[in-house]
């Protein structure tokens, strides 16, 4: 019996190649066509992988043909670089994938959910047996442990998430924060949505075009305010997201100073994502004002990624421990998941050292 993984990811293929395999097969069809005992298909925007167990050795080409089945071109003309991991290396690879160490953005949180959905879909179709069941249950446990015991998922890496992270470090709970969106661009909309998703309730939108302001306000559940009134609102708000197309700064020290006096000592967090900038950079020197333009947000995202990369070694150590333990348990014929989950249909005796 063989446990193996065949796939391609952002490491080996570009989006054009990857997208040709999206939804082209299912775990059930792979079991049927390639003759596997068990199979699971994991597809994301930058990964297409088949995890399978088989009695006989199934070649990479056979799996690739299953994946390419619905493509109109001749498979021989189109052979993306598939990788293949077997036995212990397959276990290691899955644990790394589930823990987001193999992701394009190290430490991202989506992959775990995607892996769980792939497992659930394969389980419902009956393509998952005891071996993949145990393997994936352990992978989910490892991923959770890695996220809890390391800083791999710390820090934000997109404009919206950086803004939310910083706002939470200044204000704590965002439910009491008042937000003004100045300029109804796409990035400011995403940033506003990110803040709302973390609890911000009072959201105001101001734009030169009142119609566009109303449209965005309606979309995000806020209220539109006339563009001429935005300075008055600055006295009340806690977070300002600005992205207008103004050629000169809208907010300078001179304009902000009287507003700050009326705000007492409440902090003001400004996210300036406009190019050219809407806010004079010297505003950041003012007491209680935290100004982040697109460059500083990018720099924060890079720092977060660097921090995550520093955590890779610690995460790898946790994974290595689990791989050894998992292989050991399987080789001794024990069921590492028996206490927490009921394995599906196939027999217990199929798990032996020979699998790995």
């Amino acid at each position, binding site marked *: 019996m063989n446990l193996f993984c065949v796939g391609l990811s952002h490491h080996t293929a570009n989006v054009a190649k990857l997208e040709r395999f999206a939804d082209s097969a299912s775990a059930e069809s792979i079991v049927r066509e390639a003759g596997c005992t068990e199979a699971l298909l994991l597809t994301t925007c930058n990964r297409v992988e088949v995890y399978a167990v088989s009695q006989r050795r199934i070649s990479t080409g056979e799996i690739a043909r299953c994946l390419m089945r619905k493509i109109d071109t001749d498979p021989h003309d189109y052979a993306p670089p598939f990788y293949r991991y077997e036995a212990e290396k397959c276990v290691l690879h899955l644990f790394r994938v589930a823990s987001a160490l193999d992701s394009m953005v190290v430490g991202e949180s989506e992959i775990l959910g995607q892996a769980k959905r792939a497992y659930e879909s394969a389980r419902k179709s009956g393509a998952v047996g005891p071996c993949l069941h145990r393997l994936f249950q352990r992978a989910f446990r490892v991923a959770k442990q890695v996220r809890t015991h390391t800083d791999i998922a*710390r*820090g934000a890496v997109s404009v919206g998430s950086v803004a939310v992270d*910083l706002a*939470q*470090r*200044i*204000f704590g709970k965002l439910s009491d924060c008042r937000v003004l969106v100045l300029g109804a661009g796409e990035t400011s909309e995403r940033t506003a949505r990110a803040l709302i998703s973390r609890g911000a309730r009072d959201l105001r939108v101001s734009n030169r075009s009142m119609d566009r302001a109303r449209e965005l306000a309606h979309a995000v559940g806020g209220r539109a305010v006339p563009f001429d009134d935005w300075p008055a609102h600055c006295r009340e708000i806690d977070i300002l997201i600005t992205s207008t197309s103004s050629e000169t700064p809208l907010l300078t020290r001179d304009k902000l100073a009287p507003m700050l006096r009326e705000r007492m000592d409440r902090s003001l967090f400004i996210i300036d994502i406009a190019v050219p900038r809407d806010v004079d950079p010297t505003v950041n020197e003012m007491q*209680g004002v935290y100004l982040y333009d697109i460059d500083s947000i990018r720099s924060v995202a890079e720092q977060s990624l660097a*921090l995550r990369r520093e955590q890779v070694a610690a995460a790898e150590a946790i994974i290595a421990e689990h791989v050894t333990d998992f292989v050991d348990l399987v080789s001794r014929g024990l069921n590492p998941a028996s206490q927490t989950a009921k394995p599906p249909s196939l027999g217990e005796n199929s798990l032996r050292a020979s699998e790995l």
Partner: protein
Amino acid sequence: MRFNFFAIGLGFIFQTAFLSVRGHELGRCPLTNLFEVFIFLAWSVAAIYMLVGPGYRLSLMGAFTAPLVVVLQVFALIAPIDIRHPATLPANPWLEFHASISLVAYGAFALACIAGVMYLVQERQLKTHQLHSIFYHLPPLTDLFAAITRLLWWGFALYTLGIVSGFFTGHPLPRVQVVAAIGLWLLYAAILQGRHLRWLAPKRVAALCILGFSAALTLLWGITFTAQIHSLP
């Protein structure tokens, strides 16, 4: 973080046991020399942390509090300051209340100082856009400032009680000590008043907490040291 809290809790139990044994031995509150004062201060810091830390979800404060407690205790143990009084000092409830309540107030000021350091570290990172690993572990600025304000009020109230009770001890107090203690009281009163009237920005209040506690420690050392010199034969 939970480990932090339990570790400090365990240390606190041992400190309490030590102070209790010492108190029984002396037949009074164990605040007769600089050694006991430092141990009592470390105990107060740990006690206030255990009251405040979990309440304000400032668990990381333990990581800042523990080193301060260690420094106070190590200094007390290493420095030759455990000088026994030649004669047993008579028990004086007012004096003991004055000394102990003042030291608990110092504990609150110490915690306010620690929260001030945390505030300045977090504020600096936010201003300079240089976010280090600690940034994601420190509490939000708003929460830290709320903790600073409450600790200052607690410390100030206890310190006021300490000063007032000092006048009932029946001992003539050295004028320098009285002036310095009132000076410290005025400093904290000014910080709180400045905060109340919004004259002082949160960052300034945080910085003044550090200054205030440094002044408090100097005063404490001065008071205890001079008292010890005077009591020597």
